[in-house]
């Protein structure tokens, strides 16, 4: 057992009546990568947000090197040797890359109230070069960079001052393979320098591969800490959920014929700079998967079908010849879409679960243009309960839900609308195994009801496990198509991706 760097003692945090973190006592050693896992809503993010000063502690304490740690905000935490790379966007628009890196810590460049911008830019350039991100210009506006590059900038921002503890909170879900490799490299560097990484991820295989020890939280409580080289994914699932989760939560049926009825025809659809001449048919009761590398254009396909792409060319047509050109048109013709960017593109996060669920169905729920509260409540509650959204009530704000439960709200919305074609972009992104299993089961039920699903995913296993047909994309075009088959494996798909 190594030397203890950080100790959590009986740490508690509640939000209203929900106990998010309940009496957690846990230790982290010097020079280790420590995995922290648990279902959505298990308290992982709340636990680290208290450590980093984002939320205050209700009771209990953190001890760093044996001394009690009090932090007021993220910069205060940084000054005391703790930093975090968050799941969402952690950089600020309207500032330069350099200003973002040093935000809140500019004092070293300020003399008599005057900021030495040139020195700050030089320092940022040196750091970016040192981290191997030389392609990023420190003086450029951060808005010029995409989500992934901005995550790389966050890595620099969170680690350049050699903090003793770096929290990586579900960051990898937003990164492509290249971005992940960069992150892993810097996690190992931090550990090799004798500091500690707390690594939160739902991807159990990467947690096992890249950590030294793993701690499990369930329903806000500490369950166990295990050595990474002595556990399997199934062991971790059991610890997370508290019961045996069968490895096979995917579909097990093979050889079933899909209906020949076409419900949607996509013909030569292109979006400048994104996708080129995409054509395919979708059939009744079919689960059609789209896979590929992160930037292959598959995410744009979902938007294009839903009428959410700009400058789209080509045609998306229903069997009766109706063309889908806009989002209202798509919804009117029973097409649903759940975006990969759940918080920004699918949900009104600062609104109630009820309002989020009823949004697309509001015209159907109105009686002579008048909305009756009781009817809305009944509708929202019925659909939220149907897919087991973990909530205090439909009045709860979506912002207070975990990632998995947010996704359930999105699905409840479209089930409520009774959509016939459902486009799911990365439906299990950042979601724990339990909710994943629920979503797969739901997809199976929808399929049985004759609904058609397009599932866009960066997870090859779920494509293989759930889809009747898989289209692989590369550089914005279709590069391969596979039908459901037990013999189909990851290598077959990867060969068409790269």
């Amino acid at each position: 057992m190594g030397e203890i760097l950080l100790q959590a003692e009986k740490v508690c945090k509640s939000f209203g009546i929900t106990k998010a973190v309940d009496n957690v006592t846990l230790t982290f050693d010097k020079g280790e990568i420590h995995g922290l896992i648990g279902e959505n809503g298990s308290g992982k993010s709340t636990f680290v947000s208290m450590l980093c000063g984002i939320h205050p502690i209700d009771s209990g304490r953190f001890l760093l090197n044996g001394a009690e740690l009090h932090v007021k905000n993220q910069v205060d935490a940084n000054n005391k040797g703790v930093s975090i790379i968050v799941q969402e966007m952690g950089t600020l628009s309207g500032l330069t890359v350099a200003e973002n890196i040093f935000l809140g810590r500019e004092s070293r460049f300020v003399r008599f109230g005057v900021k030495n911008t040139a020195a700050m830019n030089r320092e940022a350039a040196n750091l970016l070069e040192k981290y191997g991100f030389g392609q990023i210009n420190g003086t450029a506006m951060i808005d010029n960079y995409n989500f992934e590059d901005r995550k790389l900038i966050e890595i620099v921002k969170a680690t350049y001052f050699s903090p003793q503890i770096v929290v990586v909170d579900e960051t990898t879900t937003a990164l492509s393979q290249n971005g992940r490799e960069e992150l892993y490299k810097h996690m190992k560097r931090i550990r090799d320098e004798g500091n500690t990484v707390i690594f939160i991820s739902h991807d159990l295989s990467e947690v096992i591969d890249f950590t030294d020890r793993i701690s499990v939280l369930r329903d806000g409580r500490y369950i166990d800490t295990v050595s990474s080289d002595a556990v399997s994914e199934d062991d971790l699932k059991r610890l997370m959920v508290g019961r045996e989760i069968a490895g096979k939560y995917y579909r097990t049926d093979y050889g079933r014929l899909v209906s020949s009825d076409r419900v949607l025809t996509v013909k030569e659809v292109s979006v400048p700079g994104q996708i080129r001449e995409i054509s395919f048919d979708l059939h009744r009761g079919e689960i059609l998967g789209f896979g590929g590398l992160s930037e292959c254009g598959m995410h744009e396909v979902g938007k294009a079908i839903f009428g959410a792409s700009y400058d789209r060319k080509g045609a998306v047509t229903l069997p009766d010849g109706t063309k889908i050109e806009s989002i209202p048109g798509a919804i009117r013709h029973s097409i649903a879409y759940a975006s990969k960017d759940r918080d920004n593109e699918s949900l009104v996060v600062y609104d109630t679960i009820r309002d989020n669920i009823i949004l697309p169905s509001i015209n159907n729920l109105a009686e002579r243009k008048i909305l009756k509260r009781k009817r809305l409540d009944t509708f929202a509650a019925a659909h939220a309960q149907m897919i087991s959204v973990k909530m205090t009530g439909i009045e709860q704000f979506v912002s207070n839900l975990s990632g998995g439960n947010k996704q359930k709200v999105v699905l409840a919305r479209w089930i409520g609308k009774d959509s016939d074609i459902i486009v799911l972009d990365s439906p299990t992104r950042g979601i724990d195994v339990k909710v994943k299993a629920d979503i797969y089961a739901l997809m199976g039920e929808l399929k049985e009801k004759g609904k058609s699903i397009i599932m866009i995913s960066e997870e090859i296993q779920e494509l293989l496990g759930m889809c009747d047909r898989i289209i692989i994309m590369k550089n914005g075009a279709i590069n391969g198509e596979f039908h459901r088959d037990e013999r189909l494996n990851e290598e077959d798909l990867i060969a068409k991706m790269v």
Partner: protein
Amino acid sequence: MNTGMRLNEIIKNKLFGRYYGILLLLLLAFFFWGIFKILSPDNFGSPEKMYYYLQSSIIYSVGACGFYFIVVMGLFDFSIGANVVLSAIVGVTMAKQFGYPGLLAGAMACGLLIGLCNGFLYAKLRIPSMIVTVGLMLVFESLAYFASGGQKQSLDASLQFFGKAPGNMILALIAFLLTYFILKYTKVGTYCYAIGSDEYVAKNMGINVSKYKILGFVLLHFFVGIMAVLSVSFGTSMTATTGMASMSRNFTPLMGTFFGLAFRKYGIPVPAMIIGEFIISIIFNGFIALGAPTTIQNVVTGAALLTIVALTTRPAKGVVVK
């Protein structure tokens, strides 16, 4: 890479982007000058007149610079006009005793105090800035009325150095350089942008959001104090008004701020506010030269502002604009 993408890349380049933005603004100024020159060749647009338009526009540019600090943070202030009147009256009154130092110190200190009062009440009452400043506008208008006894306050002829070139140019230039310096070389500029981008994240970065919001109001009204000196020197007198009549003085500086925000992506908010106000001045004076009624002037000026900002801002498709 097609031509459009290539052009975008070039514009993205910081140095060239800056020149591109300034060039675009100057072209717009030239465009409006050309139109009015064709329509009214004798009454409009001679070099002397253009210099006069510039001198009148810089008064508003100074106000626009002040406005910029709070508008980037997502705040607003309706008491600018009332501050111009009150600070000018205080400045004129003090100038009678202390000459130029009284004029400058009186107006600027009055502006500072008003800014502190606005910022403090906004932070403490925790109600929207628009509501706080509408309430305070009524208070400041009344104070100006009481301070002047309802009489026109004239600036002594020997104290009108800041009413014409080079005095007005020097004072305005100092204000522009100060704005540029604060935005570029102090934490205040960075923090104003950070708070405007995401207040919650800014708070988590250790930024004292309330403090910088109050500071934003202080800076705004300090610059409005300078604007008051320029206004009363240019017009040689100031009369207190009540019943929200000062409100109309808010909008010309605000239009300049819009130019600053629209051209911020080129890294030139201060030059954009100066040239933007100059463009507005050209349009105003162009209509006067044509003898157009005030209502038509207002309609066309408003439409021109919307067109210019819409054409120059052009956010990427899909970006949410609030």
